[in-house]
Structure formats: C-alpha cells, structure tokens
C-alpha cells in the first residue's frame, strides 16, 4: 500500500505521518528544500522517519493515481524525472496570497504579504524600511510581526472592521493565545483603511492610503511615502492538480467528505485547498486524510474534533473578512490586470464588449491569464470583473484553474523518458 502526499506544509506533513503510522509506504513530494510549507518557513519540520521525503520536487502532472515528478534546482533543465504510482494520493498543495489589483500594483516594491513573510522568516531579509501592510485578514499580523523582527517600520491597514468577529463568539477563544503574540502591533493597526494606489517611476515611492466604506468604496485618501507595500486579501487555493484529476469543487475549493476523500476514487485532499482555515485546521485535516488514505481502521478522534472547531473559525474568518465589490472603483482603465501579458482593465472591457462571454474566449481575446503564471495571479479578479460587467458569472469560472501542467516545464524535460519508481 503506497500513499503519495503532495505538499510538505502542515496538512501534508500530518497526512504523511498519519499514513506512515497506519503502516503504509509513504512518499512526501515537496517543492521546497525544507519541510514545513509557507507556515513553518524558517523553522524546518521533520516527518516520521518512515516517510520518504522528496525535497525540491515538483509534481507537475497527475494522471489518475500516477504522478509525474521532477527533482532538482528550481526551473533547472537538469532535474531528474520520476513517475510515482500510488494506491492513494493526498493533495495538500496549500494556497497563495490573493491580491486584488489597484493602480501601480505592478511596480517593483509592491509585494504580496506572503512574499514579505517568506523573505523575513525564511531569509531574515526586510523588503523595505518603511513598509505598509495592507489588505484584510488575520494573516497581516504575523507578516507585520516578522517585518518588525527584521528591523522594518510597519503600519498595518485592515480594510474591514473587526465587528464581524462579534457575530461568531465561539470561533474566537481558540485563537486568543495566538492573537496575544501580536499585542505589540496594537498601535500600528488602522481599520477600514487600505492602500488603493501605488506611485513611482521604476519602483514604489508612495501610496494612496484611503479610508473605506464597508463595501470598500473610497471615502478619502492621502499620499504616504513608503519604500515597500505588502498586500494580501485572503488566499487562493492551489487547485492545479485537483482540477487536473477531475476532483469536484464547491465554492472554489475541493469538495471532500468527512475523512478528506474527494470525488475521485483514491484521491484525498487536506488543508487550504479544501477551505481557508489556518495551520491547526490544515494539520487536523491532514491527519484524518492521511489515515483514511492508508486505510487505517479507525479515524483519529481528536483530529476530527479539531476539524469541527477549526471549521467554525474558518467560517467566521470568511464572514469577517470579505472582499466586497467596491474595490472595482479603485481601478482605472490603464490599471494592469494580468501582470504577465500586461492586459489592462480597458483591454478586458474591450474584449467583453466585442462579445467574449465565457472564460475561455475572454482569455483568447484579451490574453489575460495566458502568460507564465497561467492566470494564478489575475484569474480570480478577471473572472469577478467580467461577471460584474456582464451581470452574471462566467459559465466556465474554472477556466482560470484548468492547467494540465501544474507547473511550467521545459520542452527538453518533457521529451526525456522519466524513470519509473519501483
């Protein structure tokens, strides 16, 4: 019985360990050199010694329970190809920052909150001296905290208020100890405020900081000098492999049952690709999915309880930190939407006005989502803006998640005959 786990963050680690404890042969595929994912970055984690860990390894395609993997330095043409056959697969591919576009967001010096976190926690590097962290959600706090640790001066702008949490009293106490760690940020956080534009010639030198109404339309703004901006408006799940395998989605996440089984036989999912709820929930989901994938006789009871608790928090998080449509008013016709292909808001509207009414046509006519990142950065916003202008959602909203190649590959690598793993 072989279980292959994709992703070495909290969910994947817990899944690999649980499957190994249940007696399965476990292979853990992770693109990083050290285990732990984005959450534990800078503090390498260890898997159960029975787990075979493949570091610097990217699962670039899945065909049923067969995974295609390349191992070696990132984007090198000299990586080793490998084919892994599994009896069960656990997808724990995580999420990346969602960033809503605004004028100037493509200037150097504008980073995602996750980038600032990875550079500070992983490498001890500050993205700037005067930094504004802007967006919505509790993740802005650890990012600001890491920036303080590496010597930056930080202001945090939360676009929503905090009253949303008052409607979910049961969800809050479990996170209070974590919140207490960020007490030193108290005087640095401003609510209902956001960066709505970045300014500069070849790098950001100032931003427009605006007070927002609850729907995120702008009340008034002031210019503030900065040397870096970090933005995060929640997270987008990394669904490439799940969608490629044909897993059903619900509300933009992988649909799973109580033990993490997806709609595809033998394929399980855990962590942020099943819903955004943080590391504790991800680890509990991983433990349950790993045990189920290895056909352990009994599900882990404590983890199932942690999942119930974690999902309460996840629901409260989504309700308290919405990303409402007033943000569309921040855009100008020449604001870039697709950073790769340099497609502006005006270009998108022109494509819609020429009759593009579904995701696929919109991509082909406007070229949004057809660059190197394959729509990972802009896809969600392009779909939202198109829906707003058309008056209805795109009929094929998953067009921006459909990537038969989960990561780009060089043609020479594709031409090589990969080794099969015994």
């Amino acid at each position, binding site marked *: 019985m072989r279980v292959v786990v994709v992703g070495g963050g909290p969910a994947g680690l817990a899944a690999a360990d649980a499957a190994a404890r249940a007696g399965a042969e476990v292979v853990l595929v992770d693109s990083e*050199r050290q285990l732990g994912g984005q959450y534990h970055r800078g503090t390498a984690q260890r898997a159960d010694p029975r787990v075979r860990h493949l570091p610097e390894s990217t699962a670039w395609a899945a065909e049923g329970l067969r995974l295609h993997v390349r191992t070696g330095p990132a984007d090198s043409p000299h990586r080793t190809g490998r084919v892994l056959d599994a009896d069960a697969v656990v997808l724990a591919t995580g999420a*990346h920052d969602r960033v809503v576009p605004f004028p100037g967001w493509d200037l150097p010096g504008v980073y995602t909150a996750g980038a600032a976190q990875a550079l500070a926690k992983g490498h001890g590097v500050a993205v700037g001296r005067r930094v504004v962290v802007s967006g919505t959600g509790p993740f802005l706090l650890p990012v600001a905290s890491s920036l303080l640790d590496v010597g930056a001066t930080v202001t945090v702008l939360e676009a929503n208020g905090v009253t949303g949490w008052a409607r979910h009293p049961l969800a809050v106490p479990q996170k209070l100890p974590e919140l207490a760690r960020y007490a030193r940020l108290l005087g640095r956080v401003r609510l209902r405020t956001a960066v709505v534009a970045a300014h500069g010639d070849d790098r950001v030198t100032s931003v427009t900081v605006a007070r927002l109404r609850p729907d995120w339309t702008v009340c008034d703004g002031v210019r503030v000098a900065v040397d870096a901006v970090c933005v995060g408006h929640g997270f987008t799940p990394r669904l490439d492999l799940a969608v490629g395998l044909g897993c059903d989605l619900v509300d933009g996440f992988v649909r799973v049952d109580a033990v993490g089984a997806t709609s595809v036989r033998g394929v399980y999912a855990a962590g942020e690709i099943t819903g955004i709820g943080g590391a504790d929930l991800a680890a509990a989901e991983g433990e349950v999915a790993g045990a189920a994938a290895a056909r352990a006789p009994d599900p882990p009871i404590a983890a199932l309880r942690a999942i119930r608790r974690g999902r309460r928090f996840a629901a409260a998080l989504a309700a308290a930190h919405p990303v409402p449509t007033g943000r569309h008013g921040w855009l100008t016709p020449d604001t870039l939407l697709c950073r790769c292909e*340099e497609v502006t808001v005006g270009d998108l509207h022109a494509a819609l006005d020429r009759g593009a009414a579904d995701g696929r046509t919109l991509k082909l006519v406007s070229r949004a989502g057809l660059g190197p990142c394959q729509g990972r950065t802009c896809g969600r916003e392009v779909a939202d803006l198109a829906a707003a202008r058309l008056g209805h959602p795109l009929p094929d909203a998953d067009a921006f998640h459909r990537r038969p190649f989960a990561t780009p590959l060089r043609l020479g690598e594709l031409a090589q005959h990969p080794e099969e793993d015994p």
Partner: protein
Amino acid sequence: MDGEPFDVPEGRTIAAALIAAGRVSWRTTRAGGRPRGVFCGIGVCFDCLVVVNGVPDVRACQRVPADGDVVRSQRGAELPG
C-alpha cells in the same frame, strides 16, 4: 549577478540575496519593458525571472544559487543560449 560578485549565505535564494543587497527589480516585461522584481515570493507569479548560466525563465525566489552560477537580468522573453 549582472557581472557583480555576490556572497550568498547557504540556502538563501537569488531573490533574497538581491533584495538584501538593495535591488528591487531585475527583469523587464516583454511588451512594455516595465521593471519587475519579486511579487509573490513563493514561486506562483513568475515575475522575478532571471537568466542562470544562459538558461532563461528561472524563478529567482525559488532558485538557490550554486557556487559559480552566472546570473543576469532577463529582458522580455529570451531564448536559451
């Protein structure tokens, strides 16, 4: 990097080394020639591309350099060689 020698601590990515040295951009876009550097920092956005030992389209935020690697800025879409 672009002819300048860099001492990079073990395990540090090309992007982290460049930002630590005060650089914010090292690529230009294909159409507009606009400057780009790190955006997502975790291998998703492909904004931070560099040319490593003549091979273009290497994500600086993911690549940990080896001793003697020759890295340079990437200008638009480049072909290997």
